[in-house]
């Protein structure tokens, strides 16, 4: 019989995730049954078109009126209803005299959860940021007719960085502060109410050989919902000098001028060779001490690191943690406020405790492509990761094992969870998150009430870390349901 070591993939708890890919498609993946459900793609919105590649996405998954905002390649921003994919609004981010959207692609997008209750029409605020640093905050009106309207109530644009490219931007849990960072741009934190920059990071000092590490932040996230002062940023890989002693027996052969090596040294040269570094084995950075066969050498390694910054403490990183060689492409925070999940360019996913800077463990699951986005489910201990290998994988946080993997045929750029997905008592009918947008027969509120306590009994309560303040929303829902039913 063939020797196989297949992992038994336990199924997923009921979850619903939306993924976005380079062809502009939004795919909805759901896992149905309570335990042991296999996620399947239930829906696909949009037509495959590479000029509409989705670059950023943000979901506001409140119970009433959830919205999903996505930013496409040509500078278009669309707001969709995450339940059925119908577009509510589409705006163009193109500034008339500004740079073309080809050069100035949107990098970050955030749909604010706060809502002005006194305005009768619903208006939502969006924060967008482009690579050249043009950040703009605009509020758009969502009229009750679901037409593609390009009305925009107000917008405010400012420039975040003078030079360099912005690669990551995030808004904190209370939605008052935003951070931006990128290539050649140190991480800076802005106050959104006043529109001022309140803090800029400082790069770590020169190391012993006088080498600077270039500033290149590829991803960042705030560490916890309530605290805007601490955040974690991941960088690109840079060269780091490490000294070491290698025991070997070297013989210089005059013909080829190569060093014949014994196996212990082979790894050293393999690292060098594989990273195509310009180190010459004959050159001066390989020094031979006379007498002993000890080589004191310098090894140039590529390291990408993850840094924790604290605004209230200092401008340099508080804790810095090295992680492998390829750039850190995605960082996601956990609700407990100190664990983060990082994903890098070769598909390694790991969880780190940022209080100590210790690696808690890697998630092993045959991920072969760069991880572009990680999402943490607000209630269940599940994270989803998606990347360039076109797979969406669900992982269990505690055991760090794959719950399941779904093949979605295009390289994926973002994933978000729709956390209002609740399980019904009748398993055969279609399960929909209980909102007013779907005309369903059952009473949604009662369903939700039933299921929520069930869920809470099963799993340990995570109220402190939950994204939306639940009790507040429920009372609001009771109010809003009458108002919003008209849509």
């Amino acid at each position, binding site marked *: 019989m*063939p*020797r*196989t*070591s*297949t*992992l038994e993939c336990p199924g997923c708890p009921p979850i619903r995730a939306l993924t976005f890919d*380079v*062809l502009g*498609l939004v795919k909805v993946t759901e896992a149905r049954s309570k335990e042991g459900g296999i996620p399947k793609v239930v829906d696909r919105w949009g037509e*495959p*078109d*590479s000029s509409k590649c989705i670059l950023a996405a943000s979901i506001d998954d409140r119970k009433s009126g959830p919205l999903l905002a996505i930013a496409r390649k040509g500078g278009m921003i669309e707001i969709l209803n995450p339940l059925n994919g119908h577009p509510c609004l589409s705006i163009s981010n193109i500034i008339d005299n500004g740079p073309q959207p080809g050069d100035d692609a949107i990098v970050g997008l955030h749909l604010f959860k706060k809502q002005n209750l006194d305005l009768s029409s619903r208006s939502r605020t969006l924060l967008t940021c482009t690579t050249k640093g043009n950040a703009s905050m605009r509020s758009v009106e969502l009229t009750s007719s679901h037409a593609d309207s390009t009305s925009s109530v107000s917008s405010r644009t400012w420039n975040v960085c003078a030079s360099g490219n912005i690669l990551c931007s995030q808004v904190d849990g209370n939605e008052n502060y935003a951070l931006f960072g990128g290539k050649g741009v140190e991480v800076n934190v802005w106050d959104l109410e006043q529109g001022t920059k309140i803090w800029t990071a400082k790069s770590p000092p020169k190391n012993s050989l006088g080498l600077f590490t270039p500033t*290149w932040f*590829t991803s960042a996230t705030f560490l916890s919902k309530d605290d805007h002062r601490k955040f974690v940023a991941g960088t*690109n*890989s*840079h060269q780091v000098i490490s000294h070491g002693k290698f025991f070997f027996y070297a013989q210089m052969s005059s013909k*080829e001028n190569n060093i014949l090596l014994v196996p212990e040294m082979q790894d050293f040269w393999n690292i060098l*060779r594989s*990273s*195509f570094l*310009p180190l010459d084995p004959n050159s001066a950075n390989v020094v031979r001490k006379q007498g002993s066969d000890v080589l004191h050498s310098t090894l140039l390694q*590529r390291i990408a690191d993850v840094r924790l910054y604290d605004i209230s403490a200092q401008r340099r990183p508080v804790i810095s943690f090295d992680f492998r*060689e*390829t*750039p850190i*492409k995605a960082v996601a925070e956990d609700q407990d406020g100190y664990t983060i999940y990082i994903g890098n*360019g*070769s*598909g390694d996913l790991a969880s780190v405790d940022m209080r100590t800077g210790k690696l808690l463990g890697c998630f*092993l*699951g*045959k991920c*072969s*492509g*760069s991880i572009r986005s990680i999402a943490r489910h607000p209630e269940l201990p599940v994270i989803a990761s998606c990347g*360039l*290998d*076109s797979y969406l994988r669900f992982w269990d946080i505690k055991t760090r094992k794959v719950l399941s993997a779904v*093949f979605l*045929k*295009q*390289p994926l750029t973002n994933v978000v969870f729709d956390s209002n997905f609740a399980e019904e008592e009748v398993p055969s009918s279609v399960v929909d998150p209980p909102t007013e947008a779907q005309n369903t027969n059952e009473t949604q509120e009662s369903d939700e009430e039933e299921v929520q306590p069930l869920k809470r009994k099963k799993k340990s309560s995570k109220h402190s870390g939950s994204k939306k303040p639940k009790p507040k929303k429920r009372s609001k829902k009771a109010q809003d349901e009458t108002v919003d039913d008209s849509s």
Partner: protein
Amino acid sequence: MGAKRKKTEEVGGDDEVGGGKKQILPSMIKNKEKRSAVHAKLKHQKKIEKRKKAKAREAAEKRALELGEEPPAKKIPHTIENTREFDETVCKPDDEELFAGNDADEFSSILNRKSDPKILITTCRFNSTRGPAFISELLSVIPNAHYYKRGTYDLKKIVEYAKKKDFTSLIVVHTNRREPDALLIIGLPDGPTAHFKLSKLVLRKDVKNHGNPTSHIPELVLNNFTTRLGHRIGRMIQSLFPQAPNFGGRRVVTFHNQRDFIFFRHHRYIFESKESKQGDSKGNKDKDAKGEKSSRGKVVARLQECGPRFTLKLISLQHGTFDTKGGEYEWVHKPEMDTSRRRFFL
């Protein structure tokens, strides 16, 4: 001594009676003489059984043919390719996302014949003896290829230079211990970078009865690139060659993928009509053919191998041009992915 003898006798007796299916294996007998005798007997038995089965099969087939019925179906042996683990990333013919993805990818302009491929070949920094020979052969295989010496330029600078001069692909031949051992194919302007491991290289002069390739545009044969990753690599290889093959030139280049190894062969072929024992040749014939590929019909194609022969294995596929620093990988091989011997990625 006595105990041992008893044990082996018992074992021998059991073995004769049982079918060998019980746990008494020859390897459990400690006595070498006895063990080898038991093993030889076992083998002899198996041989007799096999012969009996084969005879029975032949007889059944002959009988069926005589009676005019259908012979019993031939059994197909299990091979690794037959029992390959099911891969959900295999390209299906009706997948519209696949076609959309193809239109959108980096090679579509070449494959749609909107632009012609232009290849730049270079080496790694430390040149060696067999490198240039292989490169000159590559230059003859791939039409419209140019060779530039490496010097000490950074690979990124070379990429920029190639972009400026409108090259569509860059191939870097990397040598290790005086043998070429890796091939880096970089698509331009922002194409993916494929890193292959090169092995079993046989140069043209070492091929027996080799032929000399002409300069006609070759026909390209890409076998067995089934999964999405394989499809992408197949398109990348296809984009190295011009898309207007000259069938009159009778020149074919084959990339055959089997078990994640890509075998490269380069042949010239001629068609011959084989009516009776003496062969009639149509067209010119340079030397004696090395391999014969004969079909059951009258017309056969004879192949003559020319050009180098090597195998490639994909190590990693990077999104974007070669970039160790900011590189994102679309596919990189990790040891944890080898969960079974029947799992392949291309």
